[in-house]
């Protein structure tokens, strides 16, 4: 068992040392190619890749800031437009109100004039009518006393008495008063 292990270890050591990382004979090779690689990557990055990416990023940054500025401008414009609109709206509203108030006042004046005119006409008509009514009423009272006297004379005659015309008219006048 022991010899076997030793043999195996020895074989392994012959084929490849236990840890290839500690095989110093390959160090020179690795270091040489590493330096070549690093120089190559450094040249690629420093000459081509990094300036290009920096340029693209800067360009995009510029574009974004430019776009943001433009957007802010547009927003300011939109705000100004809205303000102007609101102002115009308010002005229109006040104007409309003045117009309405003026129209109202005009109408009021006209209305008052018309009412005054109508009042005068009505008053005139009323006066005429009252006069007519008074005439009619006076006429009617006369007619009523005449009819009443005649009727009373007729009634008295029908009853069979003779009536004094003066007494009858006095009675009728008496009754009409009441």
């Amino acid at each position, binding site marked *: 068992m022991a010899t076997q292990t030793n043999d195996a270890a020895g074989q392994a050591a012959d084929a490849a040392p236990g*840890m*290839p990382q500690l095989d110093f004979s390959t*160090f020179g*090779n690795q270091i040489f190619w*590493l330096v070549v*690689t690093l120089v190559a*990557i*450094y040249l690629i*990055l420093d000459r081509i890749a*990094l300036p290009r990416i920096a340029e693209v990023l800067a360009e995009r940054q510029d574009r974004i800031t430019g776009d943001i500025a433009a957007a802010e401008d547009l927003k300011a414009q939109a705000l100004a437009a809205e303000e102007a609109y609101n102002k115009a709206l308010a002005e229109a509203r006040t104007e409309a109100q003045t117009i309405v108030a003026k129209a109202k006042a005009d109408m009021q004046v006209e209305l008052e004039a018309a009412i005054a005119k109508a009042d005068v006409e009505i008053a005139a008509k009323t006066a005429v009518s009252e006069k007519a009514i008074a005439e009619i009423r006076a006429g009617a009272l006369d007619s009523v006393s005449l009819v009443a006297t005649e009727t009373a004379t007729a009634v008295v005659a029908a009853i069979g008495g003779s009536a004094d015309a003066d007494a009858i008219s006095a009675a009728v006048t008496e009754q009409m008063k009441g």
Partner: protein
Amino acid sequence: MASEAQGEETGLVFHPMEQFVVKPLFGGDTVMWYTPTNVTLWMALTVLAVFALLVLGTSRRAMIPSRMQSVGELAYGFIYRMIEDVAGKDGVKYFPYIMTLFMFIVFSNFLGLLPMAFTTTSHIAVTGVLAMAVFLTVTILGFVKHGLGFLGVFWISSAPLVLRPVLALIEVISYFVRPLSHSIRLAGNMMAGHAVIKVFAAFAAVLAISPFAIVAITAIYALEVLVAFIQAYVFAILTCVYLKDALHPHH
């Protein structure tokens, strides 16, 4: 390799470390420093992937990005903001270097997760070079920028005077452990995850436990996808932290 010896008896064969072997790409045994190996292949693929994402993906420079371009821009913004937040405004100068580190590590980690792939970042040689590069750069940068004032990073002036020498000792030790922990964290995480997947893959050969093993492999694989990103993130953010120490040594 006791596990291997045991495995041969029971029919199980474990080779959890075999996947990390550096092999020449076109045959042969000797690995010279210039030999194209599987390291070369997978590092080249990493470069291609970075190129595809960050160059081809952004080639249209679209104002409204495509998916690829979004991912590229996301990676850019992610690292950029991280440096700004952690290291401060004057750290932004070092953005390409940190971006290089991050892109290399993140693509190495993700490519290493492909089946049959070779994970370059699981090698201490690779991560050690990365960590030492960061460590040396940061240290030299600190001395260049602040002269001897950079040593103030070890002298914590807000602590009581009696404690300061002790704290200074601890700070010095922790400063020099930085490259070690920085490199071994990445390599260790990658190696451990891949080795565990390999061990469970060996278990899958046994019929009785293969369903469990396959479920476990799936779960660990999902965890490894997360770890692959988080380790790259942690490597980059720690680089930023060290950079901050170099740029502003006074706490």
